[in-house]
C-alpha cells in the first residue's frame, strides 16, 4: 500500500471553547461564534485568514449563518462529515487533507451544542417521518416502533453481546468511569469538577439500559462549544503555540453501518469500526501503538470505550477490563485516556472536546499532563486521528 503523502503537513494551531454547562442561555450559533473567535485568537489569526470550514452531521449551526455572523469572507472549502459524533474526528482529517493539498490555508473545525437545554441528546427520538437528523433513518425506521429510541438503547445491543461473549460485567465498565471522573474532578472546565465517584457509587446508580448502561456510564448532556484552527505546518511554525501535527487520520467505512449502531453486522462483540480505523491509522503512516502516549477515546457510553480499546488493538479481545483494572488509564499507566474527564466527565461537545484535550496534551499544557507526550490518538469510533508534537 502506498503511504499517504499528507501526514504531518497540517497542524492544529488554535483551540477555543465556551463554558460547559446545562443551560447556556444563548443559541448554538452564538456559542459557535464565541469558541471560533477564541480559537482564532489563540492561534494569532483573524477571521480574514480563514478559507475553510469543516463540521459533521447533526450540526444545528448552518454554515451560511456562521459565515455571516463571524464575518468570514473567503471560505472556498467546506466539508460536513457523516455519522454524527462518530464523525467528529473526520473534520480534522478533512481539514488536514484540504491544507496538505493546497485547497485551503486555514480551516476552522467546530461544534456547538445545547444537548441539555435544547433538544436533549439522551431523549427519546420518535418522529412521524424519516429524517437525516439525530437518529439517522435506519434507527428511526427499524428501531422506533419497538421502543429502541435513544442513543443508549441503540448501542446497548453491542454492549450486551460484548458482555455475554467475554464475561464482562457492569463493574468493569465502572472502573473506567471512576478513572474519568477522577480526571474530571481535577478539571475546572468539567461539569463534574471536584465531584469524583467510587465504584460503589457507580454500581448504585440506576439503570438506563440493563444490564450494560447505568446513569454514570452515560456521557453528559452538555451545552457549549469548542473550535480548533488548522493551518499548514510551515505557517504553524510562525504562530504562538507549538504546532500539533495531524500525523494520521481515517474514516472507517463499514457495510451496513448506521449512525450510532451496527445492528446488522455479523459480530457485535467487537467495535467493527475500530478494526477498520486501526488498519488506517497504524497501517499506512508508519506509526505503531507503542508510539501512542495518550488516548482520547469516545466515551458516549462506557461500554463503547472498552470496545474501542480492544478494536484499536491496545489490548486483546475481552481484555479491556483487565487492562483497566491494572490501572493502565492513569497518568502512569500504559495508555492514559480521557485525561480531561472525557465525554462522561468533562462534558459532551459531541466528541470534539476530545481533540482540544489532545492538543493541550501535545502542547504540554494539559491539567493532567502526560509527561513528554509525543503522540495522541483520538478515536471517535468511526473516524480518528493521530496527532503529534512537532
Amino acid at each position, binding site marked *: 500500500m502506498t503511504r499517504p503523502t499528507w501526514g504531518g503537513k497540517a497542524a492544529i494551531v488554535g483551540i477555543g471553547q465556551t463554558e460547559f454547562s446545562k443551560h447556556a442561555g444563548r443559541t448554538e450559533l452564538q456559542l459557535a461564534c464565541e469558541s471560533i473567535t477564541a480559537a482564532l485568537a489563540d492561534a494569532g489569526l483573524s477571521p480574514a485568514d480563514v478559507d475553510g470550514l469543516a463540521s459533521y452531521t447533526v450540526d444545528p449551526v448552518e454554515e451560511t449563518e456562521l459565515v455571516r455572523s463571524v464575518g468570514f469572507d473567503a471560505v472556498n472549502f467546506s466539508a460536513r462529515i457523516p455519522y454524527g459524533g462518530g464523525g467528529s474526528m473526520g473534520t480534522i482529517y478533512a481539514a488536514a487533507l484540504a491544507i496538505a493539498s493546497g485547497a485551503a490555508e486555514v480551516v476552522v473545525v467546530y461544534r456547538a451544542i445545547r444537548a441539555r437545554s435544547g433538544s436533549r441528546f439522551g431523549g427519546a427520538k420518535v418522529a412521524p417521518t424519516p429524517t437525516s437528523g439525530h437518529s439517522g433513518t435506519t434507527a428511526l*425506521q427499524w428501531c422506533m416502533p419497538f421502543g429502541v429510541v435513544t442513543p443508549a438503547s441503540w448501542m446497548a445491543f453491542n454492549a450486551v453481546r460484548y458482555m455475554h461473549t467475554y464475561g464482562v460485567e457492569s463493574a468493569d465498565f465502572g472502573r473506567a468511569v471512576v478513572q474519568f471522573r477522577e480526571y474530571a474532578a481535577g478539571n475546572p472546565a468539567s461539569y463534574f469538577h471536584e465531584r469524583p465517584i467510587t465504584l460503589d457509587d457507580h454500581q448504585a446508580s440506576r439503570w438506563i439500559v440493563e444490564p450494560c448502561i447505568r446513569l454514570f456510564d452515560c456521557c453528559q448532556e452538555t451545552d457549549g462549544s469548542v473550535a480548533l484552527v488548522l493551518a499548514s505546518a510551515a505557517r504553524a511554525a510562525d504562530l504562538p503555540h507549538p504546532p500539533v501535527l495531524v500525523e494520521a487520520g481515517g474514516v472507517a467505512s463499514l457495510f451496513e453501518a448506521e449512525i450510532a449502531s451496527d445492528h446488522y453486522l455479523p459480530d457485535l462483540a467487537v467495535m467493527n469500526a475500530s478494526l477498520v480505523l486501526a488498519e488506517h491509522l497504524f497501517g499506512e503512516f508508519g506509526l505503531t501503538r507503542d508510539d501512542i502516549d495518550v488516548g482520547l477515546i469516545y466515551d458516549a457510553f462506557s461500554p463503547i470505550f472498552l470496545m474501542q480499546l480492544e478494536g484499536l488493538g491496545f489490548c486483546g479481545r475481552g481484555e479491556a477490563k483487565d487492562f483497566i483494572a491494572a490501572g493502565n488509564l492513569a497518568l502512569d499507566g500504559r495508555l492514559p485516556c480521557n485525561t480531561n474527564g472525557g465525554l462522561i466527565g468533562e462534558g459532551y461537545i459531541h466528541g470534539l472536546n476530545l481533540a482540544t484535550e489532545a492538543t493541550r496534551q501535545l502542547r504540554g499544557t494539559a491539567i493532567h499532563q502526560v509527561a513528554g507526550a509525543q503522540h495522541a490518538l483520538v478515536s471517535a469510533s468511526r473516524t480518528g486521528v493521530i496527532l503529534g508534537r512537532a
Partner: protein
Amino acid sequence: MADAARPAPILTDDNAVFWEAAREHRLVAQQCGSCGRLRHPPRPMCPHCRSLAIDVVELSGRGTVYSFSIIHYPPTPFFDYPVLAVLVDLDEGIRLVSNLVDVDPASIDGTSLVGARVTVDWVAADSGAELPVFRLTGSDAS
C-alpha cells in the same frame, strides 16, 4: 399500560414491502431476483450483485436471540417499561430489531437470554400497523 399506542413504523417507498406484509401478519424479506440473497432492512439495490430485481419471500418466523437489552429510561407514553428489546437472528439469516413479549425482564439473569429460541407473534401499533414481536419458543401461542 402505556398511555398511547405504539408509534407506527415510518413508511417509505423502499420499506413499504415489509410493513404492508406485516399488516397481514406475514413476516417477509427482500430476496435478490438475480443472486437470490436475502436482505434486511429493505433497499432498492442488491448490495452484492447490484441487481434491481426484487422478490419478496415469507420467512419462518423462527430464530435465536443474538442480543437484547432492558430499556428503563427515559420512559415515553408509547410503551410499558422496562422495554425488553431483542436482536433476533432468524433461521434464514436475517436479523431483526424487535421485542420479546410475555417474559418478565426481572426474571432475566445477566446475559442469559442470549441464544434463546424465539418465534414471531404480532402486536398492534398506531394507525392500524402491525409489528412483528417474539415469544420464547414453546410458550403459549408460538
